[in-house]
């Protein structure tokens, strides 16, 4: 047999199963979701569907719950991204020093990242319990009056935000850390010899060379924030008064509790567009160097 034929046979043999799997469970649904946005589904009668054009999208636009969910998701993102990223960056700088025990601390900080979001959501739900939870124990110790947290419509979202930051900040600290460690030490050394202060080194070396990593962290955090589901589902179910309902959770409820598959699909497309735009932005900033 010719070399080329052997190559083709072997090549395809090696990739066959995973590629088929990806085609069926990856590509097909990826294409199907776009079609689904234009259909209305009768899930209770065995999943028949009818083409309804843009009516799903029109329904979403006039759905106040959808807009509330959208606002909540944006709010969540606006709070999480700067706070979490700032904490991650500060700690990356601190952890980057040669100090005794730094590895120990880094390991400790990383524990919440390793724990599953389900466990963390359940644990924090109990921490936030107004009567028996750890949160109010700490607050009363600090002479601050106890709070309602997840039960209070105004405190629920901040509570969820704190939990999410608690889980993820060390992940991004590690990303910043590897970005910091990519900066050649000679740059710091020669600037030190030139008499630059620590602050000047920070301003003229660290920050510019960290730009790419910073963009990455900011955009990834934004994308992750748009996709948040588990803590909402477990800690609040979207309440109270729909104040913590986020996009993915609302999509899930619409699809599996209200059986509105078409409407939920249309919302999924909106989510996709948002994430896609952010991904394009990410690729653009990568090219900038």
């Amino acid at each position, binding site marked *: 047999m010719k070399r080329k034929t052997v*190559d083709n046979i*072997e*090549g*395809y043999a*090696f*990739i066959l*199963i*995973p*590629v*088929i*799997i*990806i085609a*069926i*469970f*990856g*590509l*097909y*649904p*990826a294409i*199907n*979701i776009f079609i689904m946005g234009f259909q209305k589904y009768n899930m209770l009668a065995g*999943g028949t569907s009818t083409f309804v054009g843009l009516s799903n999208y029109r329904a979403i636009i006039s759905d106040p719950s959808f807009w509330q969910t959208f606002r909540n998701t944006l709010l969540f993102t606006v709070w999480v991204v700067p706070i979490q990223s700032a904490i991650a960056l500060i*700690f990356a700088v*601190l952890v980057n*020093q040669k*100090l005794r025990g730094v590895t120990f*601390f880094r390991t*400790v900080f*990383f*524990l919440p990242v*390793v724990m*599953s*979001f*389900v*466990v963390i959501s*359940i*644990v924090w*739900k109990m921490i936030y319990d107004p009567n*028996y939870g*750890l949160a109010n*124990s*700490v607050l*009363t*110790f600090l002479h601050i009056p106890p709070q309602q947290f997840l039960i209070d419509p105004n405190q629920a979202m901040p509570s969820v935000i704190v939990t999410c930051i*608690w889980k993820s900040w060390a*992940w991004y600290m*590690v*990303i910043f850390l*590897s970005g910091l460690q990519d900066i050649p030490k000679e740059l710091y050394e020669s600037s030190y010899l030139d008499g630059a202060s620590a602050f000047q080194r920070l301003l003229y070396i660290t920050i510019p060379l960290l730009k790419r*990593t910073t963009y990455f962290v900011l955009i*990834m955090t934004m*994308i992750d924030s748009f996709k948040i589901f588990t803590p909402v589902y*477990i800690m609040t179910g979207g309440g109270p008064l729909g104040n913590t309902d986020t996009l993915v959770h609302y*999509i*899930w409820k619409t699809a599996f509790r209200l059986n509105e*598959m078409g409407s939920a*699909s249309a919302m*999924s497309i909106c989510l*996709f567009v948002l994430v896609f735009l952010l991904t394009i932005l990410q690729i653009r900033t*990568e090219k900038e160097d």
Partner: protein
Amino acid sequence: MRGKIQWKVATYAVFLIAASVVLLPILWVLGNSLRITSEIGKYTDFNLRLFFPERITFEHYSVLFTEYPFAKYFLNTVFVAVIVTGLSLLLNSMAAFSFARINFFGKNVLFAALLITLIIPGEVMLLPSYLLIKNLGLMDNYLALILPALGGAFGIFYLRQSFLGIPKELEEAASIDGSDRLGIFFRIDLPLIRPHLVTLGLMTFMGQWDGFIWPLTVLTTPDKYLLQIGLNYLQGEHYSDWGAIFAGAMVCTLPIIIIFLFLQKYYIEGIASVGIKG
């Protein structure tokens, strides 16, 4: 020079505060999981008693396995996670090898198609995947959890990078010695990328262990639940049994923490690779 010591002290102070914020919730859960039921919730003042029980009891842990089907959840999860990790590593590494080393017809087109699957987030794929599983008659079936996970564009990309790093001379030498492609794959290339296999395997295993939204959507029989769904089900149905819930949280978490402590560097490498992918 004097600023340096102040800076060091400040750094350690900040570290201690952060470590407390991280550890106190975990210790609170651990302590409570070892308390007798009547003692849970008895202490709410912030002192040592809040974290250390009067007497230690393992009753909540045994309740998990006797009254609640936690053993089943645990075994179900291990079953799915091990099968998915093992099979996906094998299949994806073969595909990655092919993309890295073999020139076959349509290779670049296929590769580009794989890229597309990475752009769409899993949450967006949730609904059409659900319909697909429903139409395939695989609802409430572990195959719905296993099959889609056997092929992953991320794994293929990641391992392809690893294979590209292997010097071709090694493969050529083996070929001259009469080894066929499969032999080269198993005896030369695969052993050489073992650290990357561990990293990918770890990421895959963790993904399965932590799986929530997809199993939640696809599994309907409580007996089939995996750990995460099981724990959530537990706290939903028996919210008042804090002891069991705390114990359940520890059972879900301790294995992972232990694995993490032993395989730390693979974890970190996993994050770095996600960074490269971005």
